[in-house]
């Protein structure tokens, strides 16, 4: 309520001030963005016409709206940061920003928001960048419909696509981020929402959460990122209806959960990842209605995970459904559909009459001696898996789904 009030007040003030429109073009009297900002009064609108503007270190220090027409190019010529917003109520819309300088000491960004509120960054195209959109200690902003296309090759000299640092209440929606280090990075960012973004081909993580609580991310697609998505040291994160695909590699996960508590993971699709979800030290998480399809390991539990519940998920054609590295189990698996289930349903109630054991002995062996993976699907392995199933010795004997469904769940 307060937020809206302040916003309305801002608009009202803009009218009071009799806001002007300033045009910038290559042949106009004002032909650089910098001079336009200098000349502008608070709440003016600057229209940037199509053309190329070789500028960097543009500081927007008053509440302005900057709109690009037909994507004017702001070329930083690799000299450093290009746009820095230090004032509240700034909107930047429709620019093509390229050639951000690379530095080992400073995180140059295509566009940075520092200690501001109520900013809007939308419809930008960022290319040849170090950091893309960097939000620093700023709140209540919107980052919509941007396209961040990096060309990162090595992790040490590349930056993140969209980074939120000590920033709360930020909405990141409908952005497309690719080929940077981390697609979207949140550190100490609470109450943010990340929706409908596509983050692909990034060197490290498609999405990276650190020490950020009460955030929600939904309907995003994360594909072919070096290490997938990492959610670490955070509480009460809601993850809904995202797609995690084709994250292949040794340390690659659809999603990596580390020290996560009280999260909800609902309706996501994990498809063709080396590990669908890797869980470490995470408690009280609800996994529901997720599809795990064609992953190497659908879920790998690496210890210290308690009272998590996995209900009504589909586990489809994964090489391994669940891997555990301890004999202790405090998590609940119930009413999931397992494509590897071989039991029967005599009373036709849709629930298999024999419980399903999702952890195979072979997953233990592979955990111990990774090279043995080459024996996957061997008849010999099937035989030892079967004997383990009949009398569990190495796997937690209470780890079972007592009500395995016989048909794939559709929701």
């Amino acid at each position: 309520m307060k937020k809206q009030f302040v916003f309305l007040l801002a608009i009202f003030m803009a009218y009071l001030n009799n806001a002007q429109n300033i045009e910038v073009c290559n042949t106009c009297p004002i032909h650089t963005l910098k001079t336009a900002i200098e000349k502008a009064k608070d709440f003016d609108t600057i229209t940037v016409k199509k053309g190329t503007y070789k500028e960097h270190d543009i500081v927007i220090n008053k509440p302005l709206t900057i709109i690009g027409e037909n994507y004017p190019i702001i070329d930083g010529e690799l000299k450093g940061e290009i746009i820095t917003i230090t004032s509240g109520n700034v909107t930047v819309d429709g620019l093509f920003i390229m050639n951000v300088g690379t530095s080992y000491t400073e995180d140059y960004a295509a566009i940075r928001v520092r200690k501001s509120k109520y900013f809007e960054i939308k419809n930008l195209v960022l290319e040849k960048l170090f950091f893309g959109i960097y939000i620093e200690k700023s709140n209540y902003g919107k980052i919509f419909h941007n396209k961040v296309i990096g060309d990162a090759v090595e992790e040490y000299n590349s930056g993140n696509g969209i980074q939120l640092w000590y920033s709360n209440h930020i909405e990141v929606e409908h952005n497309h981020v690719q080929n940077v280090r981390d697609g979207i990075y949140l550190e100490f960012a609470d109450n943010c929402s990340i929706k409908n973004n596509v983050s692909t081909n990034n060197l490290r993580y498609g999405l990276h959460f650190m020490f950020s609580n009460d955030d929600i991310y939904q309907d995003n697609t994360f594909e072919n990122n070096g290490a997938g998505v990492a959610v670490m040291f955070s509480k009460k994160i809601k993850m809904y209806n995202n797609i995690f695909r084709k994250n292949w590699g040794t340390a690659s996960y659809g999603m990596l959960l580390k020290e996560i508590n009280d999260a909800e993971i609902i309706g996501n699709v994990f498809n063709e990842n080396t590990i669908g979800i890797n869980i470490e030290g995470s408690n009280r998480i609800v996994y529901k209605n997720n599809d795990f399809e064609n992953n190497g390991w659908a879920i790998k539990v690496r210890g210290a995970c308690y009272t998590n519940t996995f209900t009504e998920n589909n586990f489809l054609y994964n090489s391994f459904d669940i891997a555990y590295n301890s004999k202790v189990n405090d998590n609940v698996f119930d009413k999931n559909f397992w494509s590897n289930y071989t039991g029967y349903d005599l009373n036709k109630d849709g629930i298999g009459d024999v419980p399903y054991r999702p952890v195979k002995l072979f997953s233990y062996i592979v955990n111990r001696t990774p090279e043995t993976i080459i024996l996957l699907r061997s008849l010999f392995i099937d035989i030892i898996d079967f004997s383990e199933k009949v009398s569990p010795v190495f796997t937690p004997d209470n780890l079972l789904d007592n009500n395995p469904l016989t048909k794939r769940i559709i929701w």
Partner: protein
Amino acid sequence: MLKILKYSFYDLMRSRWSYVYLAFYLLLGTVLLFLNNDLSKAVITLMNVIIVLVPLIGTIFGVMYYYNSKEFTELLLAQPLKRSSIFLGQYLGVAISLSMSLILGLGIPFILYGLFKSSAIWDFSLLLITGAFLTFIFTALAFNIALSNENKIKGFGYAILLWLFLAIIYDGIFLMSLIMFEDYPLDKLSLVGTMLNPIDLSRTLILLKLDISALLGYTGAIFKKFFGTNFGLIISFIMLIIWVILPTLRIVKKSRKKDF
């Protein structure tokens, strides 16, 4: 040789066993499709069945055919024909007719189910190719066994042992040795171990298709090169071809020195 091949093939095409084999695959394909209601899943189940069953049938059938057609072979030997062409002709006759039963038996139900409209078609083709390779390899091995053993019972015994060894025991020993030497770098050893057993080799081909996500979870550089690129596929196929050629050469060599 082509004439012998033709007659062996016709002979087999008319034999009861070819139909039993064909019917078995027809049934298997239909039942799997009926139970799974899903092409992709049926293909996966089938792969597990194929890499174990095809070698068994190939060996047993090969040995059986050899012993059963012994007199016919003698009849042929008295004709102005080269020995190598007699045995190669018979071998190819058996291998081709078995492969045909496999391809038709599985192909028909899957095509009727709508294979051509499905994305599983490549997996399925790979399955059939692998199955055909396994048939050729194990029929050749069976002929080798039969050529070296006059005694029928012994021949069958060795054939079963060979299958048992390559399908199960080999993997057991393989697994044990990998676990025993786990402190050493093993990726070369494990790949070489796979190459030396045609069943494992075929399994690898199938893994490349089905479990690539899991395979790429392992760190070894050679592993990565093998499974991450087409390298693995190519090497596996080359090895399968070698696995067909070597026993076939031995058939030729052995048959030249054998008394009838």
